[in-house]
């Protein structure tokens, strides 16, 4: 009994050490602590596969840990905007027309905020930014590494009536957007199966 618990502890320790310290990197694999990539990719293989790319990824998936939100210029709340009656396409305008949904510029914000909530310090700061011609440096939350050779197009998915929340989680429950759905290949393939969309390799990898 005692012995087996010891073994379990040892195994857990090894698992933990491997997860945190993952120093055996393959080329292109983001370094531990590289702020330019999402923390979830630290120490992971750049190749996006249905199986987990690294021991660390597997462990994180096993314990169901979600990556930290990507640091944004300020804590934009999706929740507030969605509960006020806005819809996703109001700001992510490219989603119905092209491959990418797009991130709004200050000009888009100011369509409403030249009138609404003008007394808030953050809005006043934004108004000053627009006057100076400065834009926010938004950072992408969802993306595929180029090495995964995945090309995702939003428009066909919108035409097929896939809800935004299917892939991005219920943003009305989120403040700053964070990865809520683990978009691995199994996730894509399952949905394609269910909707009888093509599962040919070249549908996504080209």
């Amino acid at each position, binding site marked *: 009994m005692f012995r087996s618990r010891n073994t379990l502890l040892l195994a857990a320790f090894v698992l933990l050490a491997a997860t945190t310290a993952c120093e055996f990197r393959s080329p292109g694999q983001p370094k531990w*602590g590289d*702020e330019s990539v999402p923390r979830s990719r630290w120490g992971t293989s750049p190749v996006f596969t249905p199986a987990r790319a690294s021991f660390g990824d597997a462990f994180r998936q096993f314990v169901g840990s979600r990556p930290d939100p990507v*640091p944004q210029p300020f804590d934009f709340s999706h929740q507030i905007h969605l509960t006020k009656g806005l819809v996703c396409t109001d700001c992510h*305008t*490219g989603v119905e*027309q*092209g*491959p*990418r*949904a*797009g991130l709004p*510029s*200050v*000009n888009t914000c100011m369509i409403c905020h030249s009138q609404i909530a003008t007394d808030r310090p953050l809005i006043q700061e934004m108004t000053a930014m*627009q006057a100076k*011609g*400065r*834009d*926010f*440096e938004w950072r992408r939350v969802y993306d595929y590494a180029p090495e995964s050779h995945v090309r995702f*197009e939003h428009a066909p998915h919108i035409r097929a009536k896939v809800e935004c929340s299917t892939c991005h989680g219920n943003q009305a429950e989120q403040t700053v957007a964070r990865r809520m759905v683990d978009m691995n290949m199994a996730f894509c393939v399952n949905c394609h199966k269910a909707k009888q969309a093509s599962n040919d390799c070249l549908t996504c990898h080209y």
Partner: protein
Amino acid sequence: MDRRHFIKLTAITGTTAALTACGNPENQVIRFIPEEELVPGLSTWKPSVCPLCNAGCGVIARVVEGDAEVFRNGEAGVIRMGLVKKLEGNPEDAISQGKLCARGQAALQVTYHPDRLDKPRKRSGERGSGQYVDISWDEAITELTGQLDALVAANDQKSLAFLTKPRRGRRLELIAQLLQRYGAPAPATFEVFSDEVLRRANAISFGAHQLPTFDLEHAKYVLVFGADVLGTWNSVVAHSAAYGRMRHGGAGARAKLVYVDARLSQTGANADEFVAIKPGTDGVLAWGIARAIVVQRGGAPAAGDAPFTPEEVEKRTGVSAAKVERLAREFAANGPAVAIIGGAPLAHTNGLFNAVAVNTLNRVAGSVNQPGGVSFTSMAAPTPTRRFSEIVQGDAPKVLLLDDVNPVYGSPASLKVADALKRIPFIVSFGSFIDETSALADLILPDHSFLESWVDAAPESGAAKAVPVTFAPVMRPLYDTRSTPDVLLDVSRQLARPLANLPASFEEFLNSEAAAQPRPQASSLKSHAPGSVVISEPQFDGDAGQYPYHLIPHASQAFHDGSLAHLPWLQELPDPMTSGMWCSWVEINAKKAEELGIHQGDVLEIASTQGSLRAPAFLSPGIAPDAIAIPVGQGHTNFTRYASNRGVNPITILAPTMIPETGTLAWAATRVKITRVGGPDESLILFGGATRERPEWTHGRGDEH
């Protein structure tokens, strides 16, 4: 320090370091608000026109949203904007017909070049030292206006000179108008590989002072004298597209292409037959063929045709009498047949004779203004210009405006063009790059790239119908540059005595009616019987005994006249005949090289009466034993990080021999001697190098072939 203490300390230091690293405002780039709303990821194709040569190929540019590093209001930052990512031929365009040459594809790199000039500058150090200080556009325009006002005050407006490339179109028309109204002489033009001789010959033969258009698609027999019609000469894309159709004319309809020159060019490599000829005797051969056609038809040769009997032609050109008669039979029997001349045969002292002789051949064969023959587009007369030599010789101008033209690189060293320019008190350059000529400028007012500005072109030849085109910018400017025609308009408005009634902008000028210009008469086909032109021998610089080899400089496939050597895609482009890249080479006859003990890659010294240079040998079966060829394009001393101090420039050692009728450089009229100075020095870089088909190339030993 105990262990617990150590761990605590490490944790604190680590956290502090991590916190300070994030969110440091100094490391954050400025991001500007986008000036246009684009759907991210979707491409738009917008039309424009390629500016890299005179052909005027219509292009379409793929514009996609992306992040670009830009200058806005004097600040560097990042902006999301529509960026041109690819250029292709415009399928709707009469010249390019949806195709584009390698040079045109690389035109993209002009806009994104890391050494592109991004803001106005004023010289702060010695001339040519490369020391400049940034100034604002207002200061720059005030500076230029001040210089021009000083000329007006001294009543010396004629001392303003404008030097540009000989481009047809409304940009040059506007520049000429502004100069004229200011009181300055017409703009001068400079071009290394000028075709002025051919225009002059066409004026003599056909009454059309312009370049010819060939209906290659419908020709059954094409006889080319030295013109690399598929590689570098005139409207290459139009020629190549038509050539493709000519070769696929249906069963039994494959036209024949014969190439005559002292060197096998890319066009020569595509020919069915290569006729090697002594340099500068192309006119004799053409006339000989024309005479033989007349004789074979049972006509009587003109009295003056005595030097053009097949035997006499053989003696002068080295082409056998039997071959002359055969070529004549084939040319007459396989109509429509057309003869084309260009390149080196025009660049001899007797270039005009050579061109007129080929025109005569075309007329004797009945190929003028016929399907499958030669014709001239009906178009407005070009803007009158003056010769470059007027600027460097005689009274030097006091103010010189340079519009993206590089005569210091493109002139023989003995002409001392740089010294002549240094005597000019004030030089302004509008080009986008520092090159050998603009390095002498006192003021640099960089132009937009062609993708960022209003552009126009009026192709002189290439398509049966000349269609002048005008296009809007396809992307917003990246940097603090300004469109040169607009700067000139601004300057004209801000003069102490401003020019009145100016268009508000170049855009407005382009969209206004062109000034009524005389249209040329439909080719009047002046009679020019064979015999009335006196045979003209080519003159060469350098004694034949002491300098036994003809130097044939030729336009490079990649860099054309050298103005494109700054584009790394083109540096990386292997030459189709030698596979050379990022380097210069001396093409030498393989058998001759064996006699001389010269092997592939050996360093040769090439000396003319004017100077010498060193370059590696490339052994080729496609060049005459008494000639060597060096591509023009490399050998820049000061032209961005990619072109500077790479290879050699054969123009420097050319004799300053001019073609008497046009005053253009006879760049094929120099003799040289060759000395082997050493073994391979690794300066010869060949594609795929040495490893596969030709392992001997590794060691620079080409003994086996």
